[in-house]
């Protein structure tokens, strides 16, 4: 009988084996196991590719509802965060990048450069989700703080280059004007401008994403866990 040197077949058995082991070591996460070998995987299944447009749509809808309800926040990263929680930092980063590319091509060209910020958010949430930082509400809030800081750090150079440090947000820019009027260096003033808006925004985003993630059916979450080659989707 022929030996089948099919790498994919072997990989599948190994992955199932690891899957079982990890399941034993899994803590109270409620079923969201991330296969340890797959955190930085670049192989995309159809399911993960389809997740990306959905994530961009969710980003847009979050922003839309925030506008309709006249909430003082952007809330335009829920989709990116969810994509990272479901499928890891790479997919989250790509969702974020495509989000800004599409905005740039269809609404506001300057969004293009802020793709870097979205990518950073995707990576940050992905890494934290993998490390269990979205298991409880409080951990998600802390995750939100981290994301806010990351987003502010990445956005500040962009703000300085393109807008001289401002962000277009009324409160942030007022703070910025106040700071540079008192001889605070532009970079620091700009950072505070950005973080004053990012803190509430990203914390709220992570809370919303957490609540949605917890409400998703397990069947859906399992599809996105890397490792096994998906043979049937039903």
């Amino acid at each position: 009988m022929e030996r089948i040197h099919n790498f994919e077949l072997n990989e599948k058995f190994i992955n199932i084996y690891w899957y079982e082991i990890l399941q034993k070591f899994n803590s109270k996460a409620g079923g969201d196991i991330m296969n340890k070998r797959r955190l930085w995987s670049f192989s995309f299944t159809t399911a993960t590719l389809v997740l990306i447009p959905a994530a961009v749509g969710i980003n847009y809808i979050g922003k839309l509802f925030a506008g309709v309800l006249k909430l003082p926040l952007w809330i335009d990263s829920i989709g990116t965060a969810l994509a990272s929680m479901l499928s890891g930092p790479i997919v989250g980063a790509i969702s974020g990048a495509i989000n800004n590319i599409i905005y740039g091509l269809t609404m506001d060209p300057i969004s293009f450069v802020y793709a870097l910020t979205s990518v950073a958010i995707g990576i940050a949430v992905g890494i934290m989700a993998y490390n269990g930082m979205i298991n409880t509400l409080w951990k998600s809030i802390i995750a939100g703080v981290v994301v806010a800081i990351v987003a502010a750090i990445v956005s500040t150079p962009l703000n300085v280059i393109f807008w001289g440090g401002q962000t277009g947000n009324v409160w942030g820019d007022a703070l910025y004007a106040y700071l540079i009027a008192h001889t605070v260096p532009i970079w620091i003033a700009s950072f505070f401008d950005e973080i004053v808006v990012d803190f509430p925004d990203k914390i709220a985003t992570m809370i919303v994403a957490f609540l949605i993630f917890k409400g998703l059916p397990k069947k859906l979450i399992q599809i996105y866990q890397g490792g096994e080659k998906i043979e049937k989707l039903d």
Partner: protein
Amino acid sequence: MTRILSLYVEEDTLVHKIDPINKILYIIVAVAVPVILPYGPTGLVFIFISAVILLASKVFKKVIPLIEFSFLILFSIVVIQGLFHPGNRVVAFNIGRFKFYREGLLYAFTLSIRVINILVAFSVLVLTTKPSDLIEALVRKGLSPRFGYVLSSTLQIIPQMISTVGSIMDAQRSRGLETEGNLAVRIRAFFPLIGPVVMNSLIETRERAMALEVRAFNSKEKKTFLNERKDIRSDRVILLGLLFILVLAIIFRVFL
């Protein structure tokens, strides 16, 4: 039928027929050259060129809303930098008690030129290219067709989701959801509104993935294109011309 999210304006001009890749190259040149040759006038030159192209493609009027959008921020930048920019020394003029300094104003104007330059250069691409043509051009040049799909479907999904917003708000309101009032009320209203939309769209992804698999989405066979690409002669000329300008700018900067 479903609209696609885009700013494309249907016209029949030469600019519309140019290969989208050339338009992308134009954006790169229009943005890079004013950086390589750091003179304010270079930016203005490119703004002028872009404006001419937009006029030639009869889409100039559509640029105005895009620029207006940024005008507010740019105006606030001019004011704030004029007043408070570190390194302000020479007073340009006074308004009442407020002194506007030349350094801050100059800085703000340079920024504005840069922003407007990027905006109009992008508009040349965005207003004269159908998104599907743009994505097809990228796939021809080597972008994975699966990512071409991801981009196309994003452009289709967003209008779909927008159209459901109205009906969801109505449905939830008729179930007693308060959407007006103080901040706490509005914040609480947020969840029942996005909840169903997000859940649905994520659950739909499963079905969409199945539908794609059934249609050989992951097949490694070489894909064929539905549309024939008509190469117009000027495509070559434009490509070489743009590259020439870019190289010229680099040489100018390095040797002068």
